[in-house]
């Protein structure tokens, strides 16, 4: 097991350097530079521009800038944002809990609904129920997040007034947020109604962000279940007279879950990508919108640092999935 784990960890090193290189070069390959954007229509004189480039260290050759960037990473310094003048790592740590909270709620929702829906569709294969579940999943998968989010806001917040329009908590509440997770902080605050307000604010964004992963998980579960349900050992279990619930729940599902777990792991990337739009619509102060704004401002250090941190999280989640995969299926870790 340790050999397996070290092998996986060893793979992270080249991946890490690959990510730093991509993040570093990606933003610099885009046309336009931060100073032209900062000056806007007024423009900036070539002398002033050269002076500022020197001040920011962008007059150095690219290889030198890259080495400085890598050296900074090993000292825990991801640079400073041009816009806010704050360290990138501080900004990331401030905003990441909001994205993590939303993504966690979305993935829990997607798993809790997606797996049972997939199982149900597989068991009722070919029925109207199966068609309905898979049809809904296809619609969910194809739904543009922006449009879907606005539609839900107009219906549930505008017309029915069941949920708040946007934000993380009612403006009435203002308390310290030591963890950054609003559900936890609202409980810690001890303020009456704060937790409920945080939950109500989470409902719509979680549904919107969960829609695509839910559809993917449901479809993956269905196809994995169908494959497993056709296996000899399932037929044997049935022939032995085991009740259908045991056949599906104990024998089929455990094996069907192997590809589903991989799919769930891969959905983390999808969630973070979806968070960009979801956060914009629901005014959710997370890293998605922060990164998009930084790209349009050419805020080099934020883009580099933000991408690196996100890639790091995805790598970590994938590592956990690999380990889980090994736990579920011993053949994998011994190979």
């Amino acid at each position: 097991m340790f050999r397996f784990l070290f092998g996986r960890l060893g793979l992270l090193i080249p991946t890490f350097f690959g990510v730093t290189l991509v993040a570093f070069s990606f933003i610099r390959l885009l046309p336009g530079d931060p100073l032209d954007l900062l000056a806007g229509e007024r423009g900036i004189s070539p002398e002033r521009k050269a002076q500022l480039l020197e001040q920011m260290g962008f007059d150095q050759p690219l290889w030198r800038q890259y080495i400085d960037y890598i050296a900074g990473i090993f000292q825990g310094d991801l640079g400073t944002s041009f816009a806010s003048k704050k360290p990138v790592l501080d900004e990331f740590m401030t905003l990441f809990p909001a994205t993590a909270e939303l993504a966690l709620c979305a993935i829990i929702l997607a798993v809790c609904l997606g797996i049972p829906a997939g199982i149900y569709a597989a068991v009722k294969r070919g029925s109207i129920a199966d068609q309905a579940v898979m049809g809904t999943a296809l619609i969910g998968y194809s739904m543009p997040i922006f449009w879907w989010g606005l539609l839900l806001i107009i219906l549930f917040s505008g017309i029915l007034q069941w949920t708040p329009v946007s934000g993380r908590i009612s403006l009435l509440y203002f308390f310290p947020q030591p963890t950054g997770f609003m559900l936890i902080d609202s409980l810690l605050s001890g303020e009456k109604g704060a937790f409920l307000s945080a939950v109500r604010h989470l409902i719509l964004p979680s549904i919107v962000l969960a829609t695509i992963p839910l559809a993917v998980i449901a479809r993956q579960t269905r196809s994995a279940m169908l494959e497993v349900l056709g296996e000899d050992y399932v037929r044997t279990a049935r022939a032995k007279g085991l009740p259908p619930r045991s056949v599906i729940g104990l024998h089929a599902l455990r094996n069907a879950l192997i590809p589903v777990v991989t799919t769930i792991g891969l959905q983390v990337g999808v969630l973070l990508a979806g968070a960009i739009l979801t956060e914009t619509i629901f005014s959710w102060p997370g890293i998605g919108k922060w990164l998009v704004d930084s790209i349009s401002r050419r805020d080099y250090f934020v883009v580099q640092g933000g991408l690196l941190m996100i890639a790091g999280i995805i790598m970590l989640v994938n590592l956990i999935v690999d380990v889980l995969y090994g736990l579920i299926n011993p053949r994998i870790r011994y190979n």
Partner: protein
Amino acid sequence: MNFQKTLKATLLGASLAVIAATGASAKTLVYCSEGSPEGFDTALYTAGTTFDASSKPVYNRLVEFKRGTTEVLPGLAESWDVSEDGLEYTFNLRKGVKFHTTSFFTPTRDFNADDVVFSFERQLKKDNPWHEYTPGAAWEYFNGMSMPDLIKEIVKVDDYTVKFVLNRPEAPMIANLAMDFASILSAEYADQLEAAGTKEQLNQEPVGTGPFAFVGYQKDAVIRYEAFADYWNGKQPVDNLVFAITPDAAVRLQKLKAGECHVMPYPAPADVADIRDDSNLTLMEQQGLNVGYLAYNTKVAPFDKAEVRKALNHAINKQAILDAVFQGSGQAAKNPIPPTMWSYNDAIEDDDYNPDLAKEMLEAAGVSDLSMKIWAMPVQRPYNPNARRMAEVIQADFAKVGVNVEIVSYEWGEYLSRSKEVDRDGAVLLGWTGDNGDPDNFLAVLLGCDGVGGSNRAQWCDENFEALIQKAKTVTDKAERTKLYEEAQVVFKEQAPWATIAHSVVFMPMSSKVTGYVMDPLGGHWFDGVDIAE
């Protein structure tokens, strides 16, 4: 250490806000702002969103724009004198003005000349300990307004008198000092931060003399202020001001309709009619202090001939552009300055839409089979909501007079940079929003000889025009300046370095309970004097 300080400050701020929020008569005005401020030290930035959250609620300036106008009134300076040669501006400061007492700073003295000297010298002097106090401190507005070349020195005459000595006479100087970058900060607060080794806090936790004191900022989510009880111009009608950051225009409108905020900026043009019909909402509108234009490159043939430029101007159907691009929220432009600005020359007649005349004029100028490029901006701006569409309308108009147009575009930063090149190929769609309400801020910046290769996208340097605007800079008498600028506009119209396209209208939806809101012609959002009806 920093975290502990922040937590302590937040806790204190929180208790204040909770007290205010739970008080029986506490009134909270919620503004659904369109974006996050980059920071709170106004002079470091150039974006209106940042100014709305920093300089407008928190700070004052020596002079202020009268609400809803570009007229300059006394602010922290009660009065001022200008020397006869126009080189010395002496300001007599207001006494008894308090700085905000917050959870992170308790002032021990009132506002005085030290604060004025501190606020400007940090931007002016490279050896000032605050000049590079935070990474990338560029003081871009101060530099953009040429203040380092203009200001020779700032002298504290006594505690309540400050003198600005200039290198050359500059009539718009007073208007410049009403701009956001000229906000006055507390030198005492800065000293305290310097002693504690936390200079960067100046950009994160602002202290000013303005109508609202900063309470706290949750990044990208909420900014909280409370009305400053000791404000020198009287306490505000509301107790708290909250900025709920809501980037999407459609969501802002939903929040406004749901009563989650009272005021919102920048509605989507498609929603304007819906807002107008909603009895719970009020829609204010005002002509923006802006102009959208098509700048020919007057250094490149055949656009170096005024008659060719004039002919093309006759070929543009501005009404079609207003209908297709502005959808009722624009007004045709005939001058390079907007009609709301003083010295606007209304006697000038616009080049009417006349394709036949345009054809004749082109033939007379010896131009046939002309092919040209039109640059369309890739972004939406207040003066041009859809440059690509605008370029397409002009392309169709020019085709009618035998001019073949190719539309080109670049990424925004690249567009701004390349369009400055003197040998640029093609006419550029661009525009300008005024900074200080002075005509010099349009005419000199956009059409002056100094701007060639820079902000003067027409690369136009006309002797007569330049003489007029340079003279207007040195004259302090407004009537005389008005005459000079009116003449300059006549020269502009004859020479036609641009096709002036439109001035846009700015909309501001709010709850019908909101009273006292006044729209700012300079595009800012001010909440002093605003109340909410019970």
